[in-house]
């Protein structure tokens, strides 16, 4: 296979960046997209050039490291896959491909196709957990979870935090990621005590990071390597609304509680 690549090259976060044209010959349809880039990099290094930086690790579609926008679609034309699991047989011989990094204010480019996704980690640090001390867990069978609920929670929990949803969203929203996390824990009985607090804290952090808002374009769902449904976005919205409209952080059952707290009882 012969390919013409226009790859985004950017030396550092502060560099302006530009597209550089590369011709790749002898690509095989059995190669993964990343192996095709490996081949390009080998040629670049051997000719004394600088290889293209791109993130990757497990190369079996689960670690969530890799990702790039190929001809305007996050992770390329195949859909429902990561680029490490995208194979060249999905492209035509002689194809012209524009390869760009995830573009988002919250994901500054580190180099070439590598971006800083630590914003997603900070959202998790704000509330993406169940506060259980090591060793204080009760016997596992004291917590029953119906099969349907467990499966649904698992559907959400499969999120790899790769950021394709943000990259694909016309608004640069991180709502599918946040919704998957809120729903995973919010669905399970273990996650109930912190459900309201979690939804609020995670959404607040999401906003602080500078992501856009969800307009229900459904682009995220279409590119998600784990095909996570936007139904979880509805669910997370519901949790957030419930938390915001009926729950107060300063909830207290004592006499003289403020009006704010009262809302807590009115539900």
């Amino acid at each position, binding site marked *: 296979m012969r390919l013409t690549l226009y790859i985004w090259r950017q030396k550092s976060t502060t560099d302006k960046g530009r597209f550089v044209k590369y011709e790749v010959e002898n690509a095989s349809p059995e190669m993964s997209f990343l192996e095709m880039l490996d081949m390009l990099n080998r040629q670049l290094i051997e000719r004394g050039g600088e290889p293209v930086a791109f993130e990757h690790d497990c190369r079996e579609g689960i670690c969530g490291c890799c990702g790039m926008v190929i*001809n305007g679609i996050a992770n390329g034309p195949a*859909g429902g896959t990561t680029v490490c699991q995208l194979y060249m047989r999905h492209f035509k011989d002689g194809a012209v491909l524009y390869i760009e990094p995830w573009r988002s204010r919250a994901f500054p480019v580190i180099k070439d196709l590598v971006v800083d996704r630590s914003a997603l980690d900070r959202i998790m640090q704000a509330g993406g957990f169940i506060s259980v001390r090591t060793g204080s867990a009760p016997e596992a069978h004291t917590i029953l979870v119906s099969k349907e609920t467990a499966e649904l929670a698992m559907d959400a929990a499969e999120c790899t935090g790769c950021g394709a949803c943000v990259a694909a969203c016309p608004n640069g929203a991180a709502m599918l990621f946040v919704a998957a996390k809120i729903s995973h824990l919010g669905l399970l009985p273990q996650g109930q005590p912190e459900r309201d607090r979690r939804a609020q804290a995670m959404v607040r952090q999401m906003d602080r990071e500078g992501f*856009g808002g969800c307009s229900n374009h459904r*682009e995220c*769902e279409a590119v998600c390597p784990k095909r996570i449904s936007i139904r979880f976005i509805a669910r997370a919205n519901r949790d957030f609304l419930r938390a915001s409209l009926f729950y107060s952080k300063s909830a207290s059952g004592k006499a003289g509680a403020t009006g704010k707290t009262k809302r807590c009882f009115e539900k």
Partner: protein
Amino acid sequence: MHWIAEFYRSTPGKKFVMAVTGVVLFAYVLLHMVGNLQIHLGPEELRGYVRLRYAAPGLLWTVRFVLLVAATLHVIAAVQLTVRNRGSRPVRYAVRRYREADYASRTMIFTGVAIAAFGVYHLLHMTFGSVHPEFIRSDVYHNVTSGLHVPPVSLLYVAASAVLGLHLYHGLWSVFQTLGLSSPIYDSWRRAFATVFSLVVTLGFGSVPLAVLLRTL
């Protein structure tokens, strides 16, 4: 911070405001459309509908006030969200393709602005009469038939109906998501609901200028 302010500051909060005000505006649009359709029954029926409207001034002004507030909030939230969304991607993609996002969803802000602009024109045209050459204050039937007799104006009204339909095609679906209304029981109907009602609104409103233009009235 007060909880309302804090809630509104969040993106889902703004979207909630957009969704709720959108529902209010949609309800008004439906009522308005049903009223407009009276014209097909004849001048007397339309005048009867208009008299009904003015029968309870308190109710009328309440509705107008609610509408004004809803429209204002809808616009403010839309502008704020759009600014935010545009700002979330300072460097744009050189090549952009969409897999799911349709024309309606991607043009919400444009159709929204167009509808707002048309709304102002429509008020000046049919309510205040300032841009209506043959405006007679109390004769709605006359104002409509004479106002829409001019083909460019009439076509503008048809186009506005279509744009409104496009806006609702996404809005009426999106509102379920934003308000957290999702369930396997009715999820498959959400799209159909939005499609049907956006069509109804487009046809309902569009039928009046078309009818005037085609001299069937």
